[in-house]
Structures are given as structure tokens and as C-alpha cells.
């Protein structure tokens, strides 16, 4: 089992993701420079947070054209796991790997704090290890996390169970007050139809140690690790 962490110019959560995979997941992990195109040695690719290309034009818009992204697209179409966090989520949307777009926060501010997340689908490869009804405490840190899509896309997401995380209050209730950025229907994370590509605005890699205020992020990484092990066992 091997994880890869893509590094774009301006990525700044790449080392956090690397640290969590090597220390807490306990699996081999390598950085993947954005000009590389061979992903054959990896079972899962993390597209990390940060400000790729300085967020020029739109967040994630220019990273989409890096050579590695064509390979990430093929990697995803083979059913392998792609995990976009924050700027990584924005890049996956810009690339068309996930539907919709992430717009400027409704309140215009950069929001940096712990939020509560409700897991709306416990059957994805990224969420099987989260116990039922557990409200996850995971930090966000973004100015463009306002998830937007048209009605047709929204209905498709709902029907297919592709809405994976929603912002909620501490009791797991989906409320306007718990929505930090104006995202449609409190959406914090979605997956593709095949469930092997996930994007989320909150940073689970920053919530894997009690010292940092929460280790709820580990549930997501351990789910993914289990899913990869199952794929390996079936091969």
C-alpha cells in the first residue's frame, strides 16, 4: 500500500498530509511533484490544501493544467482513490473530477476554525470507520469554500448519496448558523458516483492529534486505509 501527496507550486498542506500518513496511518508515502506523470506505484493520491499557483484566476483553476492532473484523471478512472482536501477539493472541481464549484465565502472572510461535520454517507471508502451519529470536529481554513452547483447537479448528488459531509452544530443538526461559508445545503464534502474520489473543504490531516484539538480526522484516513487493504486483498 502506498500513498502519494501531490505538490503544486503553492501547496502548503502537503507536509501535513505526508506526516499523518507516515506517522498515524503508518503507511509508505511519497511526494509527487506536479510535473510527474507516472502514478503507477500509488494506491491513493492526496491532492493537498494550500494556494496552488497563488489562487490566480480562480482557486484551483491553474493547477488543473499541471501535467500530473491528466494522470490523476486516469488514476481516478481506474477506480483508484483520489482525496482532495481544501485547495485539493477546489482543484478536483475545476478538473471536472467532481461536480460543482467552490466560490468565495458568503461572508467574504477567510474562515479558520474548528467546525462540526455530520457524515451523511457512511458507506464511502472514506467514511466506513466513522461510528454512526458521531459528529466530527475538524478545522477549516479557507476563503473559497462556498460550494455551488445547479439544481440538477444537487438532485443527482442527493439521489446518489454523493454528499458525504455537511456542516452541522455540535448535536449533528444541519443549521444555517453552523454553515461557515454559505455552501449550498451546508455541503462540506462530496464524492463522485463511483465513490473513489472525495473532496472536502475541512482539513482532516490537521485533526489527527489530541494536541491539535481533535483526532477525528483519523477516522477518515483509517477508512481509506481499510478500503485500500480490501482492494489489495481482492486483487
Amino acid at each position, binding site marked *: 500500500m502506498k500513498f502519494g501527496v501531490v505538490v503544486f507550486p503553492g501547496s502548503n498542506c502537503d507536509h501535513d498530509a505526508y506526516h499523518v500518513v507516515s506517522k498515524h496511518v503508518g503507511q509508505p508515502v511519497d511526494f509527487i511533484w506536479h510535473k510527474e506523470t507516472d502514478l503507477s506505484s500509488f494506491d491513493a493520491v492526496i491532492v493537498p490544501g494550500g494556494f496552488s499557483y497563488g489562487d490566480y484566476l480562480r482557486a484551483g*483553476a491553474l493547477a488543473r493544467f499541471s501535467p500530473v492532473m491528466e494522470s490523476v484523471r486516469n488514476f481516478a478512472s481506474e477506480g483508484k482513490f483520489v482525496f482532495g482536501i481544501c485547495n485539493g477539493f477546489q482543484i478536483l472541481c475545476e478538473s471536472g473530477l467532481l461536480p460543482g464549484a467552490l*466560490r*468565495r465565502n458568503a461572508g*467574504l472572510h477567510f474562515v479558520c476554525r474548528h467546525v462540526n461535520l455530520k457524515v451523511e454517507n457512511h458507506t464511502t471508502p472514506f467514511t466506513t470507520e466513522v461510528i454512526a451519529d458521531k459528529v466530527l470536529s475538524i478545522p477549516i481554513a479557507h476563503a473559497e469554500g462556498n460550494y455551488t452547483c445547479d439544481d440538477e447537479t444537487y438532485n443527482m448528488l442527493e439521489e446518489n448519496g454523493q454528499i458525504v459531509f455537511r456542516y452541522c452544530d455540535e448535536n449533528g443538526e444541519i443549521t444555517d448558523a453552523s454553515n461557515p461559508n454559505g455552501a449550498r445545503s451546508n455541503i462540506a464534502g462530496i464524492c463522485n458516483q463511483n465513490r473513489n474520489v472525495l473532496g472536502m473543504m475541512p482539513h482532516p490531516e490537521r485533526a489527527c492529534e489530541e494536541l491539535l484539538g481533535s483526532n477525528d480526522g483519523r477516522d477518515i484516513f483509517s477508512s481509506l486505509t481499510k478500503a485500500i487493504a480490501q482492494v489489495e486483498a481482492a486483487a
Partner: protein
Amino acid sequence: MRNNLKFILNHTMKAKVFVTLKPSVLDPQGKAIHHSVELLGFKNLADIRQGKYFEITFDDGVEISDARETAENIAKNMLANPVIEDYRVEITD
């Protein structure tokens, strides 16, 4: 005469690309600007929406039809995100 000829041969063609949010997409930045403009005392403003403007300058000798097609493709594939934005291209020479 010579100067005129040089002008004709070296004229630069430009594409102006306007990227705007789709009408259905909320524009919190435009709203904030609108609010501030009203604080400045400007009245009778129904709405302000923010967009992006790009100027693309072509090499000498590019045909206008090629310039338009190229600018449209650049706008469609990169400058605008079709999920939330529309674009419009104007060619000037």
C-alpha cells in the same frame, strides 16, 4: 506612405474577454462593493456585480476569424468556469 504601410502590416489584434458570474449565482463581493458605494453617497443603484476582464494580444498577421476562435477557446477552457460563469469575447484591431 511608408509609415502607413508599416502601420497596416504591424497592427495588433486584441481580444477582450469579459467573464461574469451567471445571473443565478450570488456575488457577495459585488454586494459588498454595492454597500460601500452607497455609503459614499451614490444613489439609485439597483445592483453591482463584479466580473473579470482579460486582454489578449495576438501576434502580427493573425486573421480575425482565427483570433476570435482562439479567444473563445481560451475563455471556455480556462478563463471562465462554466459551472458559475459566462463569458463574452470582443475582437478589436
